[in-house]
């Protein structure tokens, strides 16, 4: 994957419920480590924007959607198993 590709994520969370908070922290750590300078994260709280979640077809939190690069991928959970997550997102696991 080219270095110049920008990763766009949207993370659906339930306020700061435990799993949501963990997913958020794990995502930020992952981005900083592996995608430094080439990621965007859009955070959606399903309690504040339930319609948006519904429209996006999100039924559980935390859910992460990789919007770009296509194809769109989704992962449910705390994102704590980073190897699995990296693979699912097609992010190089080698340190940059």
């Amino acid at each position, binding site marked *: 994957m080219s270095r110049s590709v920008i990763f766009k994520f949207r993370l659906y969370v339930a*306020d700061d419920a435990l799993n949501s908070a963990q997913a958020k922290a794990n995502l930020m750590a992952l981005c900083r480590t592996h995608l430094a300078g080439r990621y965007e994260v859009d955070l959606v709280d399903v309690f504040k924007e339930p319609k948006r979640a519904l429209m996006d077809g999100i039924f559980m939190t935390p859910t992460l959607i990789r919007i770009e690069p296509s194809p769109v991928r989704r992962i449910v959970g705390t994102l704590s198993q980073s190897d699995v997550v990296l693979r699912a997102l097609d992010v190089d696991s080698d340190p940059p």
Partner: protein
Amino acid sequence: MMKPPVPGEMPTDEVSALIETLHATGLRLEELTGGQVDTVANREGAPFLLRRAQDHLRMSEAAKQSAILNALPAHIALLDAQGRIIAVNAAWRRFSDTNGLPGSGYGVGLNYLLVCDAAHGSASDEALPVAAGIRSVLGGLLPSYALEYPCHSTTEQRWFQMTVTPLFEDHPNGVVVMHMDISARKAAEERVVYLNRVYATLSGINSLIVRVHDRGTLFEEACRLAVGAGGFRMALIAIADPTTGKVVLAASSGVDEAFRIALRSHFLAMDADQLGSTLLERAITHKKAVVVNDLLVNAEVVFGQQYADSGVSSMAILPLIVAGNAVGALVLYASERDFFRDEELTLLTELAGDVSFAMDHIDKQERIDYLAYYDVLTGLANQRLFLERLAQYVRSATTEGNRLAVFLMDLERFKNINDSLGQVAGDELLRQVAQWFTRNAGGANLFARLGADHFAAVMPVIRDDGDVARALESKLEAFQEHPFGLGDSVLRIGAKVGVAVSPDDGTDADTLFKNAEAALKSAKAHGDRYLFFTPVMTAAVAGKVVLENQLRLALERGEFVLHYQPKVNLSSGMVTSAEALIRWNDPLTGLVPPSQFIPVLEETGLIHAVGRWALRQAMADYLRWCANGLAVVRIAVNVSPLQLRNRGFIAEVQQAIGGDPRSPAGLELEITESLIMEDVRHSISSLQAIRAMGLTVAIDDFGTGFSSLSYLAKFPVDTLKIDRSFVLDMTESPQGLALVSTIINLAHALKLKVVAEGVDSDDQLRLLRVLGCDEMQGYLFSEAVPSAEFEARYLSAPITVQPSQYGAL
């Protein structure tokens, strides 16, 4: 138990199927998601929380914060508005548990304020201000409150900082109390303070090396510095005697007598051949510093009890090493435990090195110094040392506002003696002269031999010039009469002296020395026995000495006389009383006015005798007038400040009036205003005693002192005499007139008689009558006249005075 979490892609249809299932059993969903999911959407797509997430969110903000608080090392408690503990953190709980606080009195539910209020003994030192601080914050009086306090245990120096902050800033219905362990910070601060103390000692000792020229002073000063500047509790220097090997206490500071005695006998008991058993011996034999930072619990320490009594907790023994040999040790004691650490010790080793260096320096210099500073023949100081000492005397005279005198002296005919009797005899004479000086005219420190027959002396404190002259006269006399024995012959020898007095003749040693030398030169040139550098001073001083002798004789020979100046009642024109004024009828120069000799009488103390005489004389005149059947008037006698201050004065007055019952009615004492004010309490009781005898009292020179009106009302006096300067101003300006008017009204309000002094013009007289002044005294009516004349003119009845004699009256 449950499937591992399955992050990854989830096709929508699978999820919807899952939701159907999970809506039936929420718990099952959690199991299936491995606990990694917080919400699921319901049929309408609205998310709802799973139970676990609900539990999590239910944790209140406070609960989260309490978790944070629990993680903090500070002891924290929340108090309600009444001071009850409503929550504590883990550190608080641990602290109260481990410290076994009374009745676990720091637990939730207890009223912390009441616990503080109930504290007693040393605990109340902090508890009471803490309670007050909490109440202030609760009451909204203080935005917050903080206090640092010690909480030492037997093994540890602990410090805490307590802070009190309101729960809500705008309506303080509770507070957060936090105790933070600041021991580390305090310890760091202490280290800085300790180091500074050591630095202060070090720099003081550095300057000693330059200043001090003998071991004794060096040791004493070093110990004094360590205690004074360094803040050490005690300091001592022990020196091993090079011949006996015995250790002796050379100097100490802050050491009490009992401990000093104990130390001495301890040193005495030490075996010179077997140094090594005690810590001190170990420091000396190994030439290495020994530190004990826990004196009170250390078993090796010899004087545990004394240390406890003296309040010392740490000790450092620093060997003094001169030319490679440990010659003794400097021992420093600190009241703090654990005072001497590496940094301090490095500096202190340097300090001991400085003392050692100074000792070495002194040893080498001692012999050279002696030659450099002393006259070998007489043992007196030489010029160099004299000037150094003089500079020191000048400094202290300046700081203490004293004056000092420098004398330079030459012996008369010394060259002749040397030539005719030989140099050996001459040297012997110089030695004897030096001895005479130090034995008869102050200590050896005050004298110096500058060369040949040239000597110098200093009088470090002089009261007045008369002092110097008197001392000089009597010493020169005694010196001249002293028989010096040289072999078989006895000879007497005189001296010429030049005097310089600070600060008039110089404010530094060199100038004073030079000017005294110049004075000596002119004394020799003019054949005077002594001369002051300032010629006026010589004249004045000489004049004063002569005058003093003359006044003494005058008293013996009855040359003093009393003259009387009448006081006249302004409305009746009658002479109502007389002021007795002393005159000296000098057979050589005639009448001498009091201004020329009263100051000398006061300076020499002759005033007491002369004052007694005046009282007796006035009384005698009065009784003579009575005996002659005259219409007598009261005589006012002036009392000098020195007389009234003399505690025997009342008795003297009593004696003067004791002979005749008519006496008290004939005597008034005039006392200057400033004198009364000097010692108000004593004055009031003296005046009361005087009036109790039937005498009256007048305040002289009223307006020139600093009377406060409140005192004036309390003073038991009868008459107020307006000073002549006010009478003079009265006709010069409206202000002057207003002042006299005020004084008269004031006196009348206090029921005092008013006498105007120094009235010498008709204008003044007119004004005084308008203002209602009672009596007047002055040239306009009459000057002071001899007793016989007064008797003839004013006492030969009738007393009414012809108007022509005082103009407009």
